[in-house]
Structures are given as structure tokens and as C-alpha cells.
């Protein structure tokens, strides 16, 4: 190289593809598992752990498990794995609780209708969003309530005490999630308000509910509330739990949304204002879409926690999914060493399916909503 300071490029360097990465499984192993001595040691330790942990789990869940068709004697046999036959036998109880058996078609319609309405809502490209939303958020809850509880149109009356299982878990979590969104957003906006009264009320509400454990809320709702109410008034136990869970969730959601509001640059508020958009139009068209997009992971995190927390309603005597599993585990007919464990594995799996679905959906939504503004 000479030390010339002057240089003029006389040819344009054309674009070319990046150099290909070395392929082949051996190369992949070298690069990913055995790149350095410590990597190799970690890989070996990992394999040993898997060899130690996987076979017993496999044997319990599949290898030595008793599948539907098996009998309780099979489950009681020495070394038997999970007693899936028991889950199969009591499956209806886990789904419907004490709902009358001859009336199962009613929750079934609610399940099918709910799924048919919520799926197109979750698919952004599906048509008729407005009608779909009205049907799901307004018509479906009313229809579902009357169909399930009956007492009208010749349907037999089924008190909420008899509702149970997955049905109740889904009702509580869906109502909690759907009602806490608008409440949480309003609370978050209120907390940022310039009006001192609104701001103070919102702060007090949020801090009060966040400071109490959900168990306390549920206990108060179901045991203490009736003491303060005039005798004769009777608010449904499930309804009380629904209100408690919703208000609890909305306080948490409010704080997550507030985080999103604060993350927005002030210029967004100012640009909206300088165009003459009123507070609510600004909030609806400019602020919330961005703020909520920022906090989707936090919101879904809350929903997943809420979904699992619904199992706490069992302490006030509501038979949600986990409580039905627990109740059935003392079923003498199916008494076996693995009965309880199998039930809990089943319950865990059911919860996992819904939580995992929520998690994946939110990841997909985040990617979809990304308009590449992070430069």
C-alpha cells in the first residue's frame, strides 16, 4: 500500500450474494454443540440429564400408562403409569362439572358457538368484523347465559352452583379478560388525567386492588359481602367471583397499559393535538393503537396469569377445572396410586394448551403489527 492520500474510485463494486454457510450435519454439530471444550462438556451433561429424566416421564405418561379401555385393576397394578382410563371415565365431569347430564347439549352449543365466533375475530383477514364483534361481545354472553342457566323458553333451570369444570374456567377467564380490557384502559387513561378527581379515584382503585391478594378478594366477595348486604338480597356466587376477578385483573392491566402510554414520545400527543383532534379521537386513533402494541407481551402475560388464577375460585366453592379434578381424585371407584397425579397432569395439560395458544397468538400478533417504525 502506498501512502497516497488522494484516491478516486474508478469502478463500481457490484452487489453479490453473501458467502454460503458451510453445510452438512457434521458441520452443524461442530458449530452448535462442540464448538469449544466447555460447549462439549455442557452438551454431554445435557444429554446425560435427558437420558436420566426422559425415560421415566415417558413411561409414566405413555409407556406404562393405562389407556381408555383399561380397568381400575390395571391402574392399581404394580408399576402402572398414568391412569388415562380414569380421566376418560370422568372426562364429562371435568368439562361440565355437576351440570345435568341430559342437558350437556346446552354447554356444548355454548362451546361451539363461542369457538365459531371467537376464531374469526382472532383472524385479522376474516370478513364481517363489526357484526362478528357485536355478536361475540354483546349477543353471545346474553344468549349463553340464558341457554346455560335456563328457566326460560321451557329450558330447565340450572343454577350456577351446578356449572363446573372447564366450562366455568373458560367463563371466568373469558369474562375476566374481555371486561378487564376496557376497564384497564380507562383506568390507565384516568391515572394520566389532568383532572385531579379522576386521577385520584383511578390511583386509589388501582392501588387498592393491586395491594390485595386475589384469594382475599374472592373470600371477601363470597363470605364478607353477604354480611354487609341487606338480608334477602342474594348475589350469585359465580357472579361475585366474576366481578372480583375482573376488577382485580383490570387494576393490573391498567398499570401495563400505563407503561405503554408513557413509552410513547410526547410528539405523538402533540402532533394529534396540533391537527385539532379532540382528546378522545387522539386517544383512540393515535395513542392507544401504539401504546397497546408496545405492551402486548405484558398484556398477554396478565391474561395468562389470570387464566391460571381462575383456579383460585375453588376456595370459595366454585367447581372450576382444577377443583373438579381435585374432587374426582377422592373417587373410590377409581382409587389407585396414580389417580391423583394423573388428574393433576391432565389439569396442567389443559391449562397449558390454552396458555400456550395465547402466548403463540400474541407473538404472531406482535410481528403482524410491526410496521417497521423502529429505525
Amino acid at each position: 500500500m502506498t501512502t497516497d492520500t488522494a484516491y478516486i474510485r474508478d469502478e463500481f463494486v457490484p452487489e453479490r450474494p453473501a458467502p454460503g454457510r458451510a453445510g452438512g450435519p457434521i458441520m452443524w454439530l461442530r458449530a452448535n454443540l462442540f464448538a469449544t471444550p466447555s460447549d462439549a462438556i455442557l452438551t454431554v451433561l445435557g444429554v446425560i440429564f435427558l437420558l436420566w429424566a426422559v425415560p421415566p416421564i415417558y413411561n409414566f405418561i405413555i409407556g406404562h400408562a393405562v389407556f381408555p379401555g383399561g380397568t381400575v385393576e390395571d391402574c392399581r397394578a404394580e408399576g402402572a403409569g398414568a391412569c388415562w382410563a380414569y380421566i376418560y371415565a370422568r372426562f364429562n365431569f371435568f368439562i361440565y362439572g355437576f351440570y345435568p347430564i341430559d342437558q350437556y347439549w346446552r354447554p356444548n352449543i355454548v362451546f361451539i358457538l363461542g369457538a365459531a365466533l371467537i376464531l374469526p375475530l382472532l383472524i385479522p383477514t376474516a370478513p364481517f368484523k363489526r357484526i362478528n364483534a357485536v355478536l361475540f361481545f354483546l349477543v353471545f354472553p346474553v344468549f349463553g347465559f340464558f341457554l346455560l342457566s335456563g328457566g326460560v323458553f321451557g329450558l330447565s333451570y340450572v343454577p350456577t352452583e351446578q356449572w363446573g369444570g372447564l366450562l366455568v374456567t373458560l367463563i371466568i377467564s373469558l369474562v375476566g379478560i374481555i371486561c378487564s380490557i376496557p376497564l384497564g384502559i380507562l383506568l390507565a387513561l384516568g391515572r394520566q388525567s389532568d383532572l385531579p378527581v379522576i386521577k385520584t379515584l383511578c390511583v386509589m382503585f388501582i392501588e387498592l386492588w393491586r395491594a390485595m391478594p386475589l384469594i382475599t378478594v374472592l373470600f371477601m366477595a363470597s363470605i364478607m359481602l353477604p354480611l354487609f348486604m341487606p338480608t334477602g338480597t342474594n348475589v350469585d356466587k359465580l357472579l361475585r367471583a366474576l366481578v372480583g376477578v375482573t376488577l382485580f385483573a383490570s387494576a393490573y392491566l391498567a398499570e401495563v397499559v400505563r407503561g405503554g402510554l408513557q413509552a410513547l414520545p410526547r410528539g405523538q400527543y402533540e402532533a394529534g393535538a396540533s391537527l385539532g383532534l379532540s382528546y378522545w379521537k387522539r386517544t383512540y386513533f393515535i395513542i392507544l393503537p401504539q401504546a397497546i402494541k408496545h405492551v402486548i407481551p405484558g398484556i398477554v402475560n396478565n391474561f395468562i396469569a389470570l387464566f391460571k388464577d381462575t383456579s383460585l375460585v375453588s376456595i370459595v366453592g366454585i367447581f372450576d377445572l382444577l377443583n373438579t379434578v381435585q374432587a374426582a381424585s377422592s373417587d373410590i371407584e377409581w382409587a389407585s396410586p396414580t389417580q391423583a397425579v394423573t388428574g393433576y397432569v391432565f389439569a396442567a395439560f389443559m391449562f397449558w394448551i390454552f396458555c400456550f395458544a395465547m402466548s403463540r397468538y400474541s407473538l404472531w400478533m406482535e410481528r403482524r403489527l410491526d410496521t417497521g417504525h423502529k429505525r
Partner: protein
Amino acid sequence: MSQMTETTAETTARQSGMQVSKTDVAIDVIGMHKWYGDFHVLRDINLRVMRGERIVIAGPSGSGKSTLIRCINRLEEHQEGQIIVNGTELTADLKRIDEVRREVGMVFQHFNLFPHLTILQNLTLAPIWVRGIPKADAEATAMHYLERVKIPEQANKFPGQLSGGQQQRVAIARSLCMQPRIMLFDEPTSALDPEMVKEVLEVMISLAEEGMTMICVTHEMGFARQVANRVIFMDQGQIVEQNDPENFFSNPQHERTKLFLSQILH
């Protein structure tokens, strides 16, 4: 600092279409004071802007230039004195504030486009929801202004996909879509790469040529020379000196102005 040389376009711009009204007051600021907490940011501001006037505000950072124009559309609140815009006095009354904001466009240093909306949606949001213009008409107007700022082909992209200069031109078009009677510019070229300053200034010059009432906070002295009727120099929250650009640049009176000009004109 991009210095613009004297061109024929400039001379014609000064002569044609840039009529300043002698009777129609666009903005009247009378004895205005503003504090941030205990900090006295704006002191005894008196400024009357006639319809069609183009005013450039210059001054060191922290002198209150941005705060002043932000008071004119009430992004900032003043504590004393009066601000009357298009005959409407700004008070705490939200209705009046919205009334003023509808007629006063603002362009920000950092563009402040809405990143979750396409360019076209950025331009049509306010006309549709503030003015109640039908969507198709709003889109036609939007395309008209995008053509004016020479980027109609970007209509369906998102702001994040555009260069800084393009984003600022979109921001100007967004304000124009509301068909404002006054435009405020808050250091519109300060956040731009040097190569992009010119394309934004060209749009601003063409606006000036059409007779838009403008107040620009800017350090582009070439722009000030070319289009301003008046240059205002601010320091420590006060208007220190104002004059027509020729005299302002060639014959500054106040010591502070002389110092400032010697720092930036080299």
C-alpha cells in the same frame, strides 16, 4: 448551515403572490409571559403577524423560540397576556383551542408522523375526523398534497420506510391537508441529514410563494433571507431585535444579535 445564493426565483418570489395584508391580523400576541414552574421562559412578548406574512424566528437554543410558537397553538399554555389567533383568543376553553388548532398547521423538528398508519392514513385522519370530510375526498386532497411535496408514490408505505426528508415533507403535507390559514414550523430541518435539507426548504419556499402565513423557527439563514418579511431574534425569552432580512443580516443593531450572527455566519 445551507446557504442559499441569490436566485432569480427568489426575486420573483418576493415580488409576486406574496402580498402581505395591511389590515388582516393573523396572530396577535400582546404582553405575553410564560413560566415553567418558577422559570420565566417568555417575557413580555409582543408580536403581530399580518395575513400573508412570513416570519423567521432565530436565536440561541433555550431562548424560547420554540416555546413561543408552541403557545400559538396552545401546545404550551401562557400565564399572562393575550394570544389571539384568527380572531380567537386562546384561553383554557377547549372549544376555542380546537378551533384555533384546526386553522393552524404545525410542523415539528422530529416530524411526529403516526408510525402505525400509512402515509395516506396520516394525511386523511384529521380531515376525516376533525373536518368530517368524506374519505374519498380526503384521499383525493391527500394525494394532491403528496404530489405537491413530490412523493405521491409513497402513499401506501409506513413512515418508518421513508427517509427523514421524505417524512418531513409528509408532515408538511399532513398539515396542509387541513387547509390551515397559518403554518408554524418548529426547526423543520434541524433533524435532517444535510442532503435532505434542501428538499424540505423547497417545499416551504413554494408555500411562501403562495402567500401562506408562516412562522418558522429555523437556523436556515439562507431561507430567512429568501422568503422572510421579518426576522425576529430572541434571547433569554425576549424579542431582542426584529427587522426585515436585509437590514437584519447586514446591519444588526443589538450586541447579542451581532454576536449570534458572527457565530453562525461564516
